[in-house]
């Protein structure tokens, strides 16, 4: 049997959808018993949510005032202590998981398996390298604990519809005070979340300014879509960093992805490989984005996008 510990991601109030993806990955291991650990100052609501995910046998609620904000240096020693007796410790390949899981791996004396795309055996996994230009199958050392992050775009979220027991689980380890949370500034938006949206509209450098990016927002709102961007658009300051899609931004898998004025650099494409349908709007018929687009429209975005918005009204 594989005893799997999934580290929940949450904002203190609600479970992040990445956790259901990790549970799905855990369920793909041979004969798994899946526990979810919720580290919070008061994790009751989040733990109850995790307990509803199908496949979860038990939820461990680790309440501590120091867990009010997820600081890797504070969480890692607790996770490492809790990991005793588990064969696998999984977290999501989100900035939360990428920050904390390698620290856990080092404390447990193993390398981390980053960005698991598929499970090929209890210690065998596929993962992308070189911006997704190659897929490698890796084998973790037999008999040692596996610490891994789960590439969320590769997994269908575990369904809800059960009620696993929740256990309060104090973890007694010394916690460092050398790292302090100051603040998080998140752009408030009523639009769907980029990482889970069914439809995403992204804009690139071609938009030319933050004002022009309004075209993208208006089209997105017509479609009920989330909004993304290329690195060039983020670097130029048209939109905030949390909208970057790609190798070093967010890896997403919407049903429909509309790329507007984006050339299709490999680093961008790696973030949208798993999209259902890719639409490209670009004035350059030679742009690499057309090599992967299911539907391409060669044209000037400043005429095409308003027309499309109108057609959808």
């Amino acid at each position: 049997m594989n005893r799997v510990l999934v580290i929940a991601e949450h904002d203190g109030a609600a479970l992040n959808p990445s956790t259901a993806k990790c549970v799905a990955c855990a369920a793909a291991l041979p004969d798994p018993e899946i526990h979810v650990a919720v580290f919070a100052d008061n994790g009751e609501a989040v733990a109850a949510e995790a307990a509803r995910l199908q496949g979860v046998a038990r939820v461990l609620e680790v309440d501590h005032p120091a867990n009010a904000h997820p600081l890797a240096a504070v969480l890692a020693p607790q996770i490492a202590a809790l990991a005793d007796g588990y064969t696998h410790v999984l977290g999501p390949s989100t900035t939360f998981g990428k920050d904390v899981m390698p620290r856990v791996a080092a404390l447990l004396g193993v390398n981390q398996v980053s960005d698991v795309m598929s499970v090929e055996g209890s210690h065998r996994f596929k993962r992308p390298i070189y911006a997704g230009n190659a897929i490698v199958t890796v084998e973790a050392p037999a008999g040692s604990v596996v610490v891994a992050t789960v590439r969320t775009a590769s997994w269908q979220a575990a369904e809800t519809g059960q009620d696993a027991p929740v256990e309060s689980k104090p973890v007694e380890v010394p916690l460092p005070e050398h790292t302090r949370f100051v603040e998080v500034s998140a752009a408030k938006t009523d639009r769907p979340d980029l990482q889970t949206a069914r439809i995403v509209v992204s804009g690139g450098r071609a938009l030319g300014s933050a004002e022009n990016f309004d075209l993208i927002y208006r089209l997105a709102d017509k479609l009920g879509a989330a909004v993304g961007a290329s690195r060039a658009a983020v670097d130029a300051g048209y939109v905030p960093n949390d909208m970057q899609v790609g190798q070093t931004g967010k890896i997403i898998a919407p049903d429909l992805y509309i790329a507007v004025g984006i050339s299709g650099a490999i680093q961008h494409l790696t973030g949208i490989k798993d999209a259902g349908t890719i639409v490209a709007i670009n004035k350059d018929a030679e742009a690499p984005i057309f090599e992967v687009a299911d539907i391409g429209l060669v044209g000037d975005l400043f005429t095409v996008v308003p027309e499309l918005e109108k057609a959808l009204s």
Partner: protein
Amino acid sequence: MERILVGLKRVVDANVRVRVRADGSGVETDGLKMSINPFDEIALEEALRIRERGEAQEVVVVSIGGSECQQQLRTGLAMGADRAIHVDADPELDQLTIARILLALAEKENPGIVLLGKQAIDNDNNQTGQMLAALWGRPQATFASKIVLDGDTNATVTREVDAGLETVEVDLPAVITTDLRLNEPRYVKLPDIMKAKKKPLLTVAFADLGVERAPALEPVAFEPPPQRQKGVLVEDVAGLVEALKARGLLR
């Protein structure tokens, strides 16, 4: 602070598209243009700016791998680093062993900050900095887009996270890993390349560091990613709307 230690990994240049060898034995890297990992260039740039502001005395660059990575160290010296350390080792070393090597160097050099990239763009692991911080028992501030030092005692770091920007305060020494928006690295000028030839570059053998090799993940197979097929071109917006409807994506 006395010094900043910067990790420079030699990787296939970001503009080169690599291919999996036909026999699936690995990724073909022979004859490809090699560069400093882009995130490490950003780390070095940041360290140089900190030194230029008078907040650090010395910038030391480190690269772990075969003798080829001395090229990247020379580029780092040309950018402005004061000295370089080449740890002569198997270029395929695992990240935990790399972190152990960096720990051995940190214990010897006593840097106020170890600045690394958030991820090497070859293996896309994104783990070395976090591992070093764990082994060192020191703070980590990953995915940094802004670093403000408060003397030698602590740093306030803005981090690019999925929700937006997070700010943390860390005691020094600490490990900081860079994100893309931290800065724009400078270009190397020809005279600097000449000057860099005279700067100290020390080679240390892995075996002499007393570092134990960690159990690595074994690569058992390589394959190209599934290719997406090139789709259709539509003439105009009406054609686009129709194509979306045909796929059931629009009502």
